[in-house]
């Protein structure tokens, strides 16, 4: 109240400020600023301070302007039910308001949680090393490409990606590749998954990395991952697999199919869809340990011989290695990784596998029901699906999507006659409504 015109988050009373200025030996705060008049700012931004209640009301009112839709949306970004305990634990101030663990002696809690997160990814990928997060699946893919550039001494500069790939992912990858003079090219797909023969034909000395996804952006489970891995191997290219933590709990172990690196989304645990906020999963073979981007937590001992944790191999990082760092990443998604780890703990392996199995069953069942409607065929691809699938509609896809939206359902319109539908535990109870709406608008 007495601080109404200043920041409410500084505690200084007028008397204290005066004492402090006297101690410093200046008359006012302005005297402490060494900014030449020519570049000093004396205007205003026109931002009126509001009370916290006003801001809560204002933001709630604005955000409420988005429609209330049941979202059958996916394409690389998924929301599952996040148990309440995840919020309650992750929101503890000791986690949320802490900094990167530069003083490990007072950061054991977060370090151990991140170590456990890494361990969970080691189990899910079968690879030796997982970092404690990248921003999202797309940037993790970009970092995989620069890793490939560093660890492959070939003259190659081509990164091969599937032709069906989320555009945003490809765009991010291109930006990471550009700095290393790498280029991104595609390989063809057949009925939703890789055309491995065509890929083999394309792969050669110029290829430094082959990227494949399972599930693909269209929800198809890639059936020939090992073969793709072999193609990469023969080209002496890195084989990078894209997936997500839920799918990894049931699909073939990446290590078994020869993946060198696994990237993808780990935010399908622990996060709501959050308008695209994610958690980049990054794991790789132990050979590349000293080329890994991002933070790593390692076990060590303290002076009493007790086990302790610390950030390690920091000489890879920007704050030590500067322009020779393995990445420019500094702040990552540590707290989101904590959330994913807590979510995984609440599920346990059985809960995780159940969730993943439902992702297969629900997608299959919903595709079958929509496929029975006149004017629609689904699933378009003759593959096993995970969470999502494509529907061919007789009418223009954009119009169908718009009509479904009017009925309260959001789906993806891919192109002229293709619609993509994603179903998770959050929407499985609303499929009757979606099928009815489809029947209505087709």
């Amino acid at each position, binding site marked *: 109240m007495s601080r109404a015109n200043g920041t409410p988050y500084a505690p200084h009373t007028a008397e204290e400020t005066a004492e402090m*200025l006297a101690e410093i030996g200046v008359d006012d*705060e302005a005297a402490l600023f060494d900014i030449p008049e020519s570049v000093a700012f004396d205007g205003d931004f026109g931002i009126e301070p509001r009370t916290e209640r006003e801001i809560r009301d204002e933001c709630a009112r604005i955000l409420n302007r988005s429609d209330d839709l049941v979202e059958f949306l996916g394409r690389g970004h998924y929301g599952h039910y996040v148990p309440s305990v995840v919020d309650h634990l992750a929101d503890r101030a000791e986690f949320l308001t*802490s*900094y990167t663990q530069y003083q490990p002696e007072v950061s054991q809690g977060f370090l151990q949680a991140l170590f456990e997160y890494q361990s969970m990814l080691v189990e899910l990928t079968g690879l030796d090393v997982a970092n404690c997060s990248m*921003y999202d699946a797309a940037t993790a893919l970009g970092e995989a490409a620069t890793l490939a550039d560093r660890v492959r001494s070939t003259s190659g500069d081509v990164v091969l990606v599937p032709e069906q790939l989320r555009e945003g992912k490809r765009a*991010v990858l291109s930006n990471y590749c550009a700095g290393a003079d790498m280029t991104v090219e595609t390989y063809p797909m057949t009925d939703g998954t890789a055309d491995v023969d065509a890929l083999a034909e394309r792969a050669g000395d110029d290829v430094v990395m082959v990227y494949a996804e399972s599930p693909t952006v269209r929800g198809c489970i890639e059936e020939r991952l090992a073969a793709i891995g072999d193609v990469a191997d023969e080209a002496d290219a890195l084989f990078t697999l894209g997936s997500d933590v839920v799918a990894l709990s049931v699909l073939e172990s990446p290590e078994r199919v020869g993946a060198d690196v696994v990237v993808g989304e780990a935010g399908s645990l622990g996060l709501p869809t959050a308008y695209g906020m*994610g958690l980049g999963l990054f794991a790789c073979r132990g050979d590349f340990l000293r080329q890994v981007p991002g933070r790593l937590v390692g076990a060590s001992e303290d002076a009493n011989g007790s086990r302790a944790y610390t950030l390690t191999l920091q000489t890879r990082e920007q704050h030590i290695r500067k322009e020779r760092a393995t990445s420019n990443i500094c702040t990552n998604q540590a707290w989101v990784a*904590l959330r994913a780890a807590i979510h995984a703990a609440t599920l346990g392996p059985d809960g995780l596998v159940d969730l993943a*199995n439902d992702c297969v069953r629900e997608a299959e069942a919903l595709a079958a029901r929509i496929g029975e409607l006149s004017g629609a065929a689904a699933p378009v691809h003759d593959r096993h699906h995970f969470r999502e699938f494509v529907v061919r509609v007789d009418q223009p896809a954009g119009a169908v999507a718009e009509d479904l939206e009017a009925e309260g359902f959001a789906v993806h319109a891919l192109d002229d006659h293709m619609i993509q539908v994603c179903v998770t535990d959050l929407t499985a109870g609303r499929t009757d409504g979606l099928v009815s709406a489809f029947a209505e608008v087709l």
Partner: protein
Amino acid sequence: VREPLLSEKGQETVDVREESPLPDDLTREELTLPNPSEPETARHYTRLSQMNWAIDAGPYPLGSCTMKYNPKFTEDVAADPNAAIHPDRSERSAQGVLELQYRLQEALADIGGMDAVTLQPPAGAAGELTGILVAKAYHEHHGNDRSEVVIPASAHGTNFATAATAGYDVVELPSGEDGRVDLEALEAAVGDDTAALMLTNPNTVGLFERDITEIADIVHDAGGLLYYDGANLNALLGRGRPGDMGFDVMHYNVHKTFATPHGGGGPGAGPVGVVDELAPFLPTPRVREAEEGSGYERFEPDDTIGKVHGFAGNWLVLIKAYAYVARLGDEGLADAAAKAVLNANYLAERIDLDVPFGPFHHEFAATAGDRDAADVAKRMLDFGVHPPTTKWPEMVPEAMLTEPTEIEGKSSLDDLAEAFNLAYADTDEALDSAPNRTAAARIDQVGAARNPRLSWQALEEE
């Protein structure tokens, strides 16, 4: 006070194929993970949290990190389920998010003196990369291939790494004797190959680059662009704007300047602001007002560099930054800068260590002299405070880079000064063996790197 690993409390192995709807050749055989009950989970993470320093536990004066209080209400604002919609929502069904994005873009542009802002970069370093890629695209668009980025030696490591990631050679600019950019050295470093100069201002020892107008002229005259590293923007709020100083492109660190929680290492958000000339190159999509009365729309800038994040960045973090800016308003923002600078100057006055450079603003680099700065820091832990950043920047020997931020009061700063002084004056033995009163004693970081054990699986193999 050791808490076992979750795996040590009991794991379970599930036969994946038993109930899988998929054929065996598409599935793994089994999955082994911890299977705690919810009470066990709650206790595990509660105990872990209790072994962790945080801004809500006490001062966190890490120089260049700007650890300030994260207002609790911003968490509630960001927890609105309407904020968490899917990024592939149609424009017409996502108006609430688009409007809030637009409002934040506008506020940030005003604060930085920039013309256009993207919210997409998911962290400060991602913002740097975005800014440099935008600069690169600008040069290329004008048929102007340039190969170098000039960076002061005292700059953040991310600047160097970012330039390299974007494919540039780094030209390191030695610091002048007064701790600022040396104009002659800058003249010598800048030329036809200069794509940009990356600068933070006040710089990493808190000094304002008084010659900023001359610096801008030198870079611009050579055809280069001026990049502003927003790490130290907290000291400038309402007192100076990068745009007014000649900067062409900048990033904002929302956790440093706008009080979003750092979360132990993220999620951050690194919006990027640019002057009009660079706006066409910003990532896609951006958000603008649609025709009169029809809300907001996404659009692709004409010469966009594409994307730097798969979707729209760390949206839930950005909401908190909006709420913070709205809470403070013009006067609150200016006061935050004033109190941050006041606090740094007062604290420097109260400690027994020398501070070689000045006048500084929101942070200062004290020198531990003939003591080891890292040891002094460890000893400070024993006095119940968190120490500053140590041994950086290198221009100050045994540097202790200290930034109390505006949230500390006089008595808190006095306590901090006392911890500084006690540790600094302590015996060699005490410094060597510190800390002794923390959850863990001094941790062997060299051993951790020499024998990397990065998972519980690695520990089990031992």
